[in-house]
C-alpha cells in the first residue's frame, strides 16, 4: 500500500500559553518553545507506517514554512519514506486553501496512493476542515474520527466511537481516513531511524496560493487553569484525608 499522510507543524504545548502583541498568533519567541505534531497526526503517521509495512511506502505532505522540514524529518525517523514540503512564506492559510494545495500535491505526486491518512483535527486550530476537503477535492470517500483501523483486500475497516457504542465502516480504497488519538500507540524514533531519516528525500514545492476565504482576526486565550497543590499531610497521618479525597472523586465508595 502507498499512503499519503498529511502533517502540520504546531507549537509544543507549554504549561502556559501566551499570544503575540497583536494577538494574531501564539507567541513562540521563547527559546524553550519547541515544535511538534498534533497527537492525532502522530497516530496518522503510525497507522500509515504500519499499513505500508512490507511493500508499500509512506509519503508525508506538509504545508508550512521551511521550518516544517523539521517535522517531516521527525516522521521520517519513525518510518515515513519521503517528504514533500509545500513551502509557504508564513502567511495564514485557511482550511480550504490548505486542503486544495495538499490535494493538488497528492495528485501531482508520482505515487498512486491507496489512501490519505490525516488526523481528524489539528491540536492548535481544531478546524476539522482539511481531511474532509482533501477527500472532496480528490473525489474519494472519507471516514472521520477513526479509532480502529485495518485493511484487507482493498477495503479499510474503520471503527468510530459514538457514546458507549462503536460504529464500524467498511470503505473501499482509495479513501481518506481521518484518525483520532488512540487508534494506535505511535512509536518513537530509534537511532537507526534518525540516521536513515537524515538521508531520505525531501522535496520542496511552492503551493499555488489562492485568496483566503476565511480570515483570522485575532486569537483569545481561554481562561487558563492555575493548578494548585494542597498538602494533605505527611506519613501515616495523611491517610484518612486521602481516603476522604478518594471517596470524593468516586474512586472509593
Amino acid at each position, binding site marked *: 500500500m502507498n499512503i499519503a499522510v498529511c502533517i502540520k507543524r504546531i507549537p509544543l504545548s507549554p504549561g502556559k500559553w*501566551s499570544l503575540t502583541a497583536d494577538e494574531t498568533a501564539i507567541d513562540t519567541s521563547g527559546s524553550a518553545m519547541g515544535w511538534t505534531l498534533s497527537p492525532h497526526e502522530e497516530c496518522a503517521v503510525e497507522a500509515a507506517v504500519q499499513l505500508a509495512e512490507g511493500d508499500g511506502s509512506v509519503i508525508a505532505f506538509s504545508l508550512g514554512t521551511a521550518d516544517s522540514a523539521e517535522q517531516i524529518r521527525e516522521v521520517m525517523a519513525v518510518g515515513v519514506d519521503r517528504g514533500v514540503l509545500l513551502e509557504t512564506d508564513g502567511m495564514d492559510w485557511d482550511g480550504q486553501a490548505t486542503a486544495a494545495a495538499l490535494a493538488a500535491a497528492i495528485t501531482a505526486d508520482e505515487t498512486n496512493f491507496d489512501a490519505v491518512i490525516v488526523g481528524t483535527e489539528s491540536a492548535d486550530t481544531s478546524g476539522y476542515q482539511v481531511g474532509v476537503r482533501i477527500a472532496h477535492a480528490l473525489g474519494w470517500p472519507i471516514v472521520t474520527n477513526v479509532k480502529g483501523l485495518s485493511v484487507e483486500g482493498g477495503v479499510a475497516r474503520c471503527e468510530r466511537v459514538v457514546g458507549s457504542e462503536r460504529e464500524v465502516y467498511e470503505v473501499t480504497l482509495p479513501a481518506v481516513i481521518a484518525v483520532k488519538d488512540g487508534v494506535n500507540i505511535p512509536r518513537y524514533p530509534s537511532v537507526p531511524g534518525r540516521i536513515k531519516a537524515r538521508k531520505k528525500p525531501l522535496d520542496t514545492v511552492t503551493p499555488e496560493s489562492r485568496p483566503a476565504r476565511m480570515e483570522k482576526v485575532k486569537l483569545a486565550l481561554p481562561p487558563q487553569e492555575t493548578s494548585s497543590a494542597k498538602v494533605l499531610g505527611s506519613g501515616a497521618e495523611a491517610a484518612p484525608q486521602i481516603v476522604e479525597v478518594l471517596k470524593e472523586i468516586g474512586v472509593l465508595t
Partner: protein
Amino acid sequence: MSSLPSKAKCVVIGAGIVGNSVAYHLARLGWRDIVQIDKGPLPNPGGSTGHASNFIFLVDHNKEMAQLTLDSLAQYKELDTVFESGGIEVARTPERMQELTRRITSGKSWGIEDMSLLTPDEVKEMVPFIDETVILGGFYTKGVGVCDSLRAGTLMREKAIEMGALQSFANVEVEDLTVTDGRIKAVVTDQGTIEAEYVVIATGCWSRQIAAMAGAEIPLTPAVHQMKDIGPVAMFADAKGDLEYPIVRDMDTNMYERQHGTGLEIGSYAHRPILYDAEDIPSNAEAALSPTEFPFTPEDFADQDEHALELMPEIVGDENAQEKYAINGLLSLTPDGMPILGETPEVKGLWSAAAVWVKEGPGVGRAMAEWMVLGQPEIDLHASDIARFYPGQTTTKHIKDRTSEGFNKTYGIVHPAEQWASNREVRLSPYYEREKALGAVFYETVQWERPFYYESNSGLLEKYGDAVMPRTSEWESRWWSPIINAEHLQMRETAGLVDLTAFALFDITGPGALATVQRVCMRQMDVAVGKVVYTPVLAPNGGFRSDLTVMRLGDDHFRVVTGGAHGMSDLKWFKDNAAEGATFTNLTDDISTIGLWGPNARAILSAVTDADVSHEGFSFGTCREITIAGKTVLASRISYVGDLGWEIYVPMADGGPVWDAIWAAGQAHGLIPVGIGVYGTTGRLEKGYRAYGPELEGDFTVVEAGMSPKKIKEADFIGKESHLRHREAAPAATMCLLTVDDHTSSTGEKRYMLGGEPILTKDGQPITDSHGRRSYVTSAGSAPSVGKHVLMTYLPPEYSSPGTHLVVEYLGDQYPVTVEGSGAIFDPANERIMS
C-alpha cells in the same frame, strides 16, 4: 504550611543539590534560623539537578575539583544514595590513549585507588555490548558511581529541618535583593520580605540574574547538554538493577553511554555550544517539561547518533530501542570552567554557590558552610573563588566567548599550558607593540597579553645548543619553546627585560594601614619606609592564603604587589580583614611593571638614571622613586628569577619612554627581552622559589613549605596561633626539589614532566604523608643553568633527605629522580642577587 518568616540568620536561595547541601552543612556546623526558598516545587524544583545524569567520575587533572568530587562521593555514600558501577573512559585515538595514562597519574596524585588501563578485549568483557574494534583501550575506575542527587538533597534538607535549623519553602520566587552600605539586608520575594545576615545564591542557571539584583556578578551562562534515553534494550530486559554495567565515556566523541534500567542513556558534549540567558528560561508554569529541560533538537545530535551506533551497534542499532526521553538539558558554564564559590566581592554577606555540577555538589556544600561559619574551607578553593574575576571577565561577551570555546573541551585533551583563542587582546601593557615587534609569543593571564618568549631570541638556540634542553615529543613541545631556556641562559649571562604588567597592585593608606598589613601578613610590616618585604599570607589554620610583596612607601602607606591571577582575591582578603581607618586604592590598571634582571642590570639601570643604584646605595629589599627618561618610577630591588635586578613600577602612560630608554641603554650590555616562561618557570624553579597555587596553598603550612621565619613577630596576625603550633611539631611533609636522573621512556624517547605527576617510592608505590596527602609534582620545568629538569614536591620526612632516590610516573612510564633538598639548586648562597 507556615508562612515565610520575616527574619533569618541566613537565606539559602535554591533547593537543588547545592542549596540543600549548603543548608545541611550550615546546620551541622551549628547555624540555626536558616530559611531555604525555591521558586519551584519540592523535591524537584525544576533546575539542573532534576535532569542530571548523576554519574560521578573521580579523576580530574585539577586537584580542587578532584577533592570536591571525592568528598561528594563520600557524602552520597554516607546517605546511601550512590551506586558504585565503575566507569570506563574509552580511547579511539593514540592521543587519547596517552591522555588516559595521564589521567591515571592525576588519579594517583589525588589518592584515587583502583584504576587501571584496559585493552579493548578487557573493555568488552566488562561492557559486552561495545564494539571493541573501534577503540584502542580504556581507563577503568572502580569507584565511579551514579548518585540519586534529588534523594540526597531531600535527605540533607530533611536532616537540617530535623535539627531545628532549617525552614524550607517551595514555590517562593525571589523578586529583589536589598543591599545597604555594601551589605546584604533582605530577600524580597513574592510572598514577603526576609531580612537576613547571610544570603546564599545556589540557583544554578539563574545565579547571574539573582546576583544582579544585588549588584553582584556571578559570571555564568546556561548552556545545553543533550541527552536521550533509548529503550527498551533487549539485552537489558532482565536487568535487576538500574545499572549493571560500568558507565562508558567515549572521550574522543565527547559522549557517554550508560545503562539506565532497561534503557540506554546517551549524552553528549559534542554538539555546537548552545547558550542561553537566564531570561530565556521559562517559569515552571510556562515550561512544557521542567524549566531547564528544553525540547531536544535532533539535528544537533546527528553525529552523535552515528558515533553511538559505531560504539554500541547491537543496542543502538536496534529499531525497537526507541527514544523514550530526549532533552536539551540546561547546565551552567563559566568562562574558566571552574565553579563560582564564596562571598561576592561586591556585597558583604552575599555568597555564591554556583556553576556546580552534581558530582561536586555535596563537597561544595560542605566547603561553603565551612567557609561561612569557620572562615575557611578545608579544601582550598582558590581556583573557584568568586573573587578571582576582574571586571572584564564578567562581561557577557567574555562569558559567551569562553564558554563557547570551552564547552567542546568538556572531555577534551587539554594541555596544562593550553591557551584560550577567543576574546584575546583585551588588556594590553604599554609595551605591547614593542613586544610584538620583537616577535613576542603572547600567553594570557587574567586577560593581559604577556610575552611568553620572543621569536627574536631564536638566534640564541644555536649559541646554547643542547643546553636549551630541546624536546622531541609533541606533547611537551606544545605551548613550549626551547627559546625560553635560551632566554634564561642569556639573562644569566647579561640581562633580561620582563613585562610584568599583569601584576595586581593596590595601596593601603591611612591611620589603619599599618594595622591592616600587620594583621594580614605573616612577616614584620612595621619596617622602615622604603623597605620591601616578601611575606606569606596565612589562612586562620596556618595554611597559605597567598604570598606577595609589600612596600612601605610612607608611615601610613603600603603598596601590595601580587600575582595577577590571584590579585583580586588578595585584595578582597585584605579588605575583609582591614583595620579601622584603612583605605584601599586598586592601582592594577594604572601602573605597569618591568623587571630588569641579570649581571648587567646595574650597568643598564645606572645608564638611564642619575640615582645611586650601587649595591650599597640601593640595597636588596628596598625601594625608592627614581627618574628614567624624565619619568618618575618606583624601583624595587627584589628578584624572583635569582639574579641581580629591579622591578620597576611605571605609570601606564609613561611606559613607552621608560622601556625605550632601558632598551637603548641595554644594547651595549647584551640586554634581551625575556618572557614569562623564564619568570614563571625556569628562573624560579632552579632557585627553589615556591609559587602560590601549585606549592603554596591551603593544604600546606609555612613550616612544610620550608618558609618559616627564624623569629615570629610580636604583632598578632591571621594564622599566628596555628603557625606557632606548626612550629612545635615536625612537619608531615617538606617541600623538596627533585631532579630527573633519566628521561628515557619505554619507547626510547626523552620525556619531560609538566607537573601534577605522582612521586612514587623506588618500587613504584604511592607516597602518602601522615595527613593522608599524596606526594605529587607541584611544579615542573627546566633548570637550564644546572642542565636538569626540576620537579617540586612535598615529601614526608622519610623520603626528603637529599640524595634519596625515588620515581616519578609520567604518561605510563616511571622515571628515576633524586631529592636535591628544600632550597635552591642554583646559586644557593644568593651571590648573584646580592652582588
